[in-house]
């Protein structure tokens, strides 16, 4: 069995200066930062809330696939995490 690539072993957490929280009024997860907010769509929220610095990307993918009863999410999750890292929403 091959080692998972490095990208799957990182343990992302919410970026410094950002706060992730569930907003009942908007029925969505939001990222809060100085004087601003990003409203996350459903799947982005599900990924972000698992970025706790404890779980590896591998585990996050497995957890999502288990929770939603689907397979093959790895590509989508990695793509989102790349975008989120670029915006400093997460750090490793």
């Amino acid at each position, binding site marked *: 069995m091959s080692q998972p690539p490095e990208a799957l072993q990182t343990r992302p957490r919410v970026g410094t200066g950002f706060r992730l929280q569930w907003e009942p009024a908007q029925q969505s997860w939001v990222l809060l*930062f100085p004087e601003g907010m990003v409203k996350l769509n459903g799947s982005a929220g599900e990924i972000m809330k698992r970025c706790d610095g404890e779980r590896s990307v591998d585990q996050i993918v497995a957890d999502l696939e288990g929770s939603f009863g689907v397979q093959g999410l790895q590509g989508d999750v990695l793509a989102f995490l790349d975008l989120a890292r670029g915006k400093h929403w997460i750090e490793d």
Partner: protein
Amino acid sequence: MEAPQPSTMQASAMTATNGTPLWLLAELTYRCPLHCVYCYNPVDFALTERELATDEWVRVLREARALGSVQCGFSGGEPMMREDLEVLVAEAHRLGYYTNLLTSGVGLTEERAARLKEAGLDHIQLSFQDSTREMNDFLSHTKTFELKQRVARMIKANGWPMVLNVVIHRMNVDFIDKIIEMAVQLGADYLELANSQYYSFAHVNRDHLLPSREQLQRAERVTNEYRARLGDKIRMFFVVPDFYENRPKKCMNGWGNVFLTITPDGTALPCHTAKMLPGLTFPNVRDLDVRSIWYESDGFNRFRGTGWMKEPCRSCPEQLKDLGGCRCQAYLLTGDPANADPVCDKSPLHGVVTAAVEKAQRPDRERTSVHPLVFRDPMQSRRLTEAAGVPAAAHR
């Protein structure tokens, strides 16, 4: 003090424009140790009496949060002048707001910083008037420059994200490189280079403040050069004064759409300068709950959507893009808040904007008709109010 001006509120990041007051701006007091010449507080601020009490603010925080408010800005005046600031921050934090303190730094001691940290304050926006002691102290009419440097270090030491806000205008726009270098040296995470918008005291002082086109172009070029060099070490926002645009800004991201301002005496406003508009009454949180204010009051409903528009906005294909621009600018420059914002070159009154811009291209020595700078202080406030013929009895 400079609260974030409408166009610097990162409104584009506020994607959820679902018509709930996501942004609550709590203007705790008009008291302020500074006397900035571009202050956006109403020129008649000195007539305001009876600030809301702690328990009234707590009720406002709870009611707005229940409606969906999530960003809370504590502003003023200088919010540090309120001794109950820590209590209000703690309550806002407990309710789940992201809490922002917008301050000149005056009054932020080590002890208060520690108490604010303990209360759960999320972020501090510190205003600088300029990068040099001389200009900072001249523009704010105080000796605060070194104090601000100290406060900036204190903010970093407490681990808060730091936004530096510098209002840009004719007198400091040429030193934008120095301002950026100061922000980097202080370790700011964000730098707002917000050109003064022309309301309140900045309206009174406009001929002193509006930069020339050449000054602006140079400043923007320099800012872009620093952006390229610094990468994402510091995020910089450069906001052009909309006098130099030919379409108006979508002011406050739409009237009564995202922003709710509560003034020191409890008046609820769709933006922090709307109180100047004639023919409208704005409700007070002492009389009405926030839900009724937001959804039912005439003040908040009057300029929502497009139904209130006159020509050229009424038949304009771009009406949803900018919603007719800014109601306060329309009133200040044309006398009627329901007119198109004259920044728009489709406005028949666009000439008032181009005339101000043309005047700004002339060198200072040719602008002798300009009256001396008016500094924001209670005496000037009373003088300007009297000159405008507004009876003091009209105010609470």
